[in-house]
């Protein structure tokens, strides 16, 4: 007998499979997704016109076509993208081949796998909810397949109940079951995804590209108070060597073991920093990191480097102190930070001479230079004109309008000409406070470049020429860049009230706070975190873990079984509750109360045994009988019974 799946079952199945595969449209090549969609629509059409379904030969040819497409797109079956593509194409082909119940099961299980592959691309809470929802529909497909009289809504309800019942178990397994981590997902890791962010080289315009990107870079939760906005400099790579246009990080070889630990004064800030996936394994600590947990090291440029896969989200415990003194520098370092390409032009030398005093005091020169930026009609702009050759001179003498990287590079260049060791530091500045979660969100738009000069007795000192031009960007924690870009503000007289947040912004902050905690507690729960958590529970070895797992699963199973098997207890009759109290009092008086006794029988026996109580026993029994068995009970009876039982003394 040919297997004829019901229309409802087919619609359920095709609907849920379509929903499950839908998010893959953004990940897998359009050709493969198109192939899958074609198969799905063909099968959907076949629900009403079974004669149009392909025969065995056509399915075989389609399979060959699918393999061809797969190979042309991926050239492999290994790796995340190729594997996902394979599953999606296979699912599409299998849809055209439903000959029995078994095929329905295969398709549903395959769809569950495709649902899981979604998490290789996206781990957000929204995607998790979506997949959970769609899995509910898929589960309803299985329920429809196995019920005598399938109905849509009850099937969905049952699947929702099943998922709810399984959640505690999932939670226990999530927390206790050993986390399996492929070493950096080596064969699944497709590095095709281009990630934006700071890079090893700095060109004057490079940071401007980031300035409009709202992409999250990291989030910081401080244990105590937040540092003032002017101190929120998140240190990234240092750019020291230049050819006049590009700035490069100096070689870090030989500086792995930083010899001079900076001297810190003042209070330190303790915080938790959660890095989003990056292309570099840099960790942007608040200047200047004093303590950092394992897995991190500080290179000679005071930058924190992680030994984890930068493609994974990771959380770090850090401590930073804004007051520091890095001490002296070596000859190599001094030479490196005085390097200028070729001879400076006459205009530059003239400018430096102008700003220098006779004793050539560095502090005074720096002060004069910042004053120069402030007074000589310099502007801050997001879209500076391109300055292909001699960008520094063009910027200093002609355009006088630039982005933070222009100011930082020009500043450092002038300092070097004035024989002051200086370098450009990249990183992020500021960040937006999420008032719901109480943490700072730092986005790509917060990317910044500033300068560092080495001063005798003070070590490396941070100078931010941008602050001299556009103090709003630094001081007020306002994302001026985005404001300018969106045309919301004209730069000069900025009147922004950061505290007036609309409900929309509040909602957004709430959502970001939820997302932060999701990332922090769910996504970030890896082997290391699990080990730490389990040790805090006192679980040190696998035997103990096994016991814990066994006990928790048995406990949850027991609770579920008890809820399932216990007889449906109706709401207790309040009269009966009172009468039971009365019976308890009677049995305390030595009058045996048998389960098989009716109230009248009991009352007679009790009155016979205790003639002194006969009257109250009779009254209580009469009211109870009226409440429980008669049609003519009054609403006041219950209250009377309550009083009588309460005052009944044996």
């Amino acid at each position: 007998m040919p297997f004829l799946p019901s229309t409802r079952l087919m619609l359920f199945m095709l609907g849920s499979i379509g929903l499950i595969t839908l998010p893959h449209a953004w990940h897998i090549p359009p050709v493969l997704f198109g192939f899958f969609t074609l198969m799905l629509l063909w099968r959907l059409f076949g629900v009403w016109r079974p004669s149009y379904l392909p025969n065995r030969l056509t399915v075989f040819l389609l399979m060959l076509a699918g393999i061809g497409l797969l190979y042309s797109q991926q050239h492999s079956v290994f790796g995340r993208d190729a594997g996902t593509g394979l599953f999606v194409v296979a699912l599409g082909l299998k849809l055209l081949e439903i000959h029995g119940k078994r095929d329905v099961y295969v398709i549903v299980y395959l769809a569950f796998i495709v649902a899981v592959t979604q998490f290789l691309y996206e781990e957000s809470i929204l995607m998790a909810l979506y997949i959970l929802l769609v899995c509910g529909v898929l589960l309803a497909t299985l329920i429809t397949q196995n019920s005598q009289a399938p109905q849509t809504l009850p099937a969905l309800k049952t699947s929702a109940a099943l998922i709810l019942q399984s959640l505690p178990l999932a939670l226990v397994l999530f927390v206790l079951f050993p986390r399996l981590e492929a070493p950096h997902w080596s064969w699944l890791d497709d590095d095709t995804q281009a990630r934006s962010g700071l890079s090893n080289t700095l060109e004057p315009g490079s940071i401007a590209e980031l300035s409009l990107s709202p992409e999250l870079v990291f989030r910081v939760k401080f244990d105590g108070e937040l540092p003032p906005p002017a101190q929120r400099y998140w240190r990234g790579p240092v750019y020291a060597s230049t050819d006049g246009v590009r700035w490069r990080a100096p070689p870090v070889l030989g500086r792995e073991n930083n010899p001079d630990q900076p001297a810190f004064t003042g209070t330190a800030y303790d915080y938790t920093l959660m890095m989003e996936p990056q292309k570099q394994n840099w960790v942007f600590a608040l200047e200047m990191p004093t303590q950092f947990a394992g897995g991190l090291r500080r290179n000679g440029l005071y930058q924190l480097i992680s030994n984890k896969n930068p493609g994974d989200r990771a959380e770090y415990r850090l401590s930073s102190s804004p007051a520091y003194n890095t001490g002296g520098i070596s000859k190599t370092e001094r030479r490196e930070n005085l390097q200028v390409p070729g001879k400076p032009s006459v205009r530059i030398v003239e400018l430096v001479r102008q700003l220098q005093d006779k004793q050539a005091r560095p502090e005074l020169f720096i002060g004069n230079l910042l004053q120069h930026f402030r007074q000589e009609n310099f502007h801050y702009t997001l879209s500076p004109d391109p300055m292909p050759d001699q960008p520094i001179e063009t910027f200093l003498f002609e355009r006088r309008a630039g982005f933070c990287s222009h100011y930082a590079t020009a500043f450092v260049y002038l300092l070097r000409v004035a024989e002051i060791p200086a370098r450009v530091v990249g990183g992020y500045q500021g960040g937006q406070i999420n008032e719901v979660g109480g943490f700072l969100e730092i986005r790509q738009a917060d990317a910044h470049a500033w300068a560092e000069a080495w001063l005798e007795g003070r070590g490396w000192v941070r100078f931010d020429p941008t602050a001299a031009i556009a103090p709003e960007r630094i001081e007020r924690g306002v994302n001026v860049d985005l404001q300018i870009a969106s045309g919301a503000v004209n730069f000069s007289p900025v009147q922004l009230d950061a505290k007036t947040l609309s409900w929309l912004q509040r909602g957004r902050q709430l959502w970001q706070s939820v997302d932060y905690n999701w990332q922090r507690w769910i996504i970030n729960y890896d082997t290391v975190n699990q080990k730490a958590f389990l040790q805090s529970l006192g679980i040190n070895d696998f035997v103990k873990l096994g016991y814990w797992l066994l006990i928790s699963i048995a406990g949850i199973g027991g609770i579920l079984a008890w809820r399932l098997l216990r007889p449906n207890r109706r709401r207790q009759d309040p009269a009966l509750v009172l009468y039971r109290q009365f019976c308890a009092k009677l049995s305390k008086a030595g009058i045996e109360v048998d389960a098989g006794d009716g109230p009248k029988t009991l009352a007679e026996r009790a009155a016979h045994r205790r003639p002194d109580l006969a009257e109250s026993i009779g009254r209580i029994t009469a009211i109870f009988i009226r409440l429980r068995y008669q049609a003519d009970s009054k609403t006041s009876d219950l209250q009377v019974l309550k009083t009588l039982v309460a005052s009944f003394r044996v």
Partner: protein
Amino acid sequence: MDLALDRLLTAANQIILGKQPQIRLAVCCLLARGHLLIEDIPGVGKTTLSHTLARLFGLDYQRIQFTSDILPADIVGSSVFDAHQQLFSFHPGPIFKQMILADEINRATPKAQSALLEAMEERQVTVEGRTYPLPQPFFVIATQNPAHQIGTFPLPESQVDRFLMRIELGYPSRQAERELLSGQPRHVLIDQLPVALLPEQLAGLQQAAAEVHVSPALLDYLQAILAFSRQSNDFASGLSPRAGLGLLAAAKAWALIDKRKAVLPEDLQAVLPAVAGHRLNVGTNDSVAIVAPILKHVPVL
């Protein structure tokens, strides 16, 4: 009306001495529109009881003595050829009376038994394709000798189930027997009995019994009893839904005799031995002993 019932019970108790509970149950059975099976050895007053009740209720009374050679036609009647009119005419049998005493029902063959029992259930008789309704009210009191006596055809379970109640009379007490021995012959007394209830009064009482209030709590208890009888290992087979209906009807009538407007658990307990005893196949005839585990183990509240 209540007074009439009291009067009736008092009068009956004067004829059948020392058997108040049984008389009360018999009256209850009649008010619940059920049939009564009396099981006992010969000579303890089965016939007297039924005769007394018929008299007091003012019902047409007919006694049918069941023997091993009685035929169905002897009970329901038969068509006889009328030579004058040249056609068959139906001669109704003794069953066309309001109250039937089917004496020693288990002496008759199953065929004759089933003729009576079908009439009891359907309250009509079908002979040669024509249906004749039985009079209203229709009440059968069947007597049965204990099954171990010689020459009996025990009623099958399905037919015993048609009787709402089965009661036993038992030997009279010493004092009651002395009164019996020293008093007037019973048949003389019965003939002197006045009719205690008019036919419409009986119909009214039956209606009132059906309308006694039953609370959900009482139905809980009744269902617990039914469920217990079906699950317990003490009984080979549990109580049927018909038994449940009968139990409820009997308990309502019992409450009415007690002049109450609602059924109490005690009413169910009172009628339980008589209603359930013959339906639970245990192997003993002692109804009280049969239902004792139910009364003991099923919680009332």
